[in-house]
């Protein structure tokens, strides 16, 4: 074996893989007909619960929030509503989860993050092992870049009033959505043993788009042109 092959093997021994799941128990449970409570099943159940909640809300006249139109890209949905759902206030630096180095965040998320060119090592906030957020300052003001892997399930739902501008855009050849105007709400489904729902009020404009298996989101006081320019640098 050559020196290069030995070096490659040595690197291989030091690679940082995600924690190995206990497959044996899950496989046997499936073969016995007992489907284990995998996280994607939890996600499906969370959506079923959400549907039930929406139907229940619509059934109560005082709580009715009529849905006017849905806009959807993979991993995210924006709905236009008459009345925004109840939401908590959140400033940009809080409620994003603990911060890690990029490498540690990627290890926890099990994916490679897409980021714009940065001067230094970014601090990546990770919420519930699913949603990564980096605070960028492209024009001196903070802008949140959030991303998550949502090839099969929606994790984000935004509700916007009738005054908001919602339009489809293209970002680096992929589908995107631009949301501009008055405050809107963001609901996400977090994974921490079980899915839970949380709704926060957002005051900035938002660009949502997909890139490979990732769904990305820019949020801040940005114009559409600024957001699109920034998004093109995120790779």
């Amino acid at each position: 074996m050559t020196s290069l092959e030995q070096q490659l093997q040595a690197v291989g021994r030091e690679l940082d893989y995600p924690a190995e799941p206990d497959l044996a128990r899950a496989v046997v449970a499936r073969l016995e007909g007992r489907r284990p409570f995998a996280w994607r099943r939890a996600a499906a159940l969370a959506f079923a619960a959400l549907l039930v909640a929406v139907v229940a809300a619509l059934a109560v006249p005082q709580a009715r929030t009529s849905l006017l139109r849905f806009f959807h890209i993979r991993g995210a949905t924006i709905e236009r509503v008459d009345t925004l759902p109840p939401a908590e206030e959140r400033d940009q630096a809080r409620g994003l989860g603990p911060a890690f180095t990029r490498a540690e965040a990627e290890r926890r998320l099990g994916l490679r993050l897409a980021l714009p060119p940065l001067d230094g090592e970014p601090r990546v906030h990770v919420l519930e092992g699913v949603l990564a957020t980096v605070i960028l300052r492209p024009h001196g003001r903070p802008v949140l870049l959030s991303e998550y892997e949502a090839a099969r399930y929606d994790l984000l739902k935004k509700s916007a009033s009738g005054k908001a501008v919602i339009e489809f855009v293209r970002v680096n050849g992929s589908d995107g959505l631009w949301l501009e105007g008055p405050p809107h709400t963001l609901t996400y489904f977090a994974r921490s043993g079980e899915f839970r729902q949380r709704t926060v009020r957002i005051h900035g404009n938002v660009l949502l788009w997909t890139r490979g298996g990732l769904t990305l989101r820019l949020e801040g006081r940005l114009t559409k042109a600024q957001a699109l320019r920034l998004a093109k640098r995120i790779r």
Partner: protein
Amino acid sequence: MVDRPLQEPELVERAKRGDLRAWETIVREYQGIAFRTAYLLSGSAADAEEAAQDGFVKAYRALGRFRRGAPLKPWLLRIVANEARNRRRSAGRREALAVRAAAQVRPGDAVPSPEAALLAGDERERLLEAVNALPEDHRLAIACRYFLDLSEEDTAAALGIRRGTVKSRLARALARLRESLEAEE
């Protein structure tokens, strides 16, 4: 009298007859390498877990077609890797390997000086970057053969190619790696 642990061919025969405990023992033996292989191929921990789990379930159901006396590991890896590749394709996932060198010292390792650790870490990252810059088929051959330490036969099974193709692909990949590393110096 102490029961001796069952050998793999015996476990396979029992599993063929519907013994799920025997299959559980086999899964436990191979779940680590199956998960890591699926992770390198799919680029996602969640997909790797699903691919490996689905692979072991499908393999159990296909045991009737498994030839007695044949090596089990490449057969299992072929099924799991196929599941992982399908998920990668359907997700349109990025090409680079989703792995990084671990920063921490492993238990039992001698503790290097800070300078030595920095240099070693830098070398690792440089090599990993060079591997990531290779075309996908070369990169995956390197990853399976050296990073996962699979045999040529197992690498062929994981990548769904012939053993001769593994040899030639590795030779070309190593040559390109040498070129790119020398060009940097």
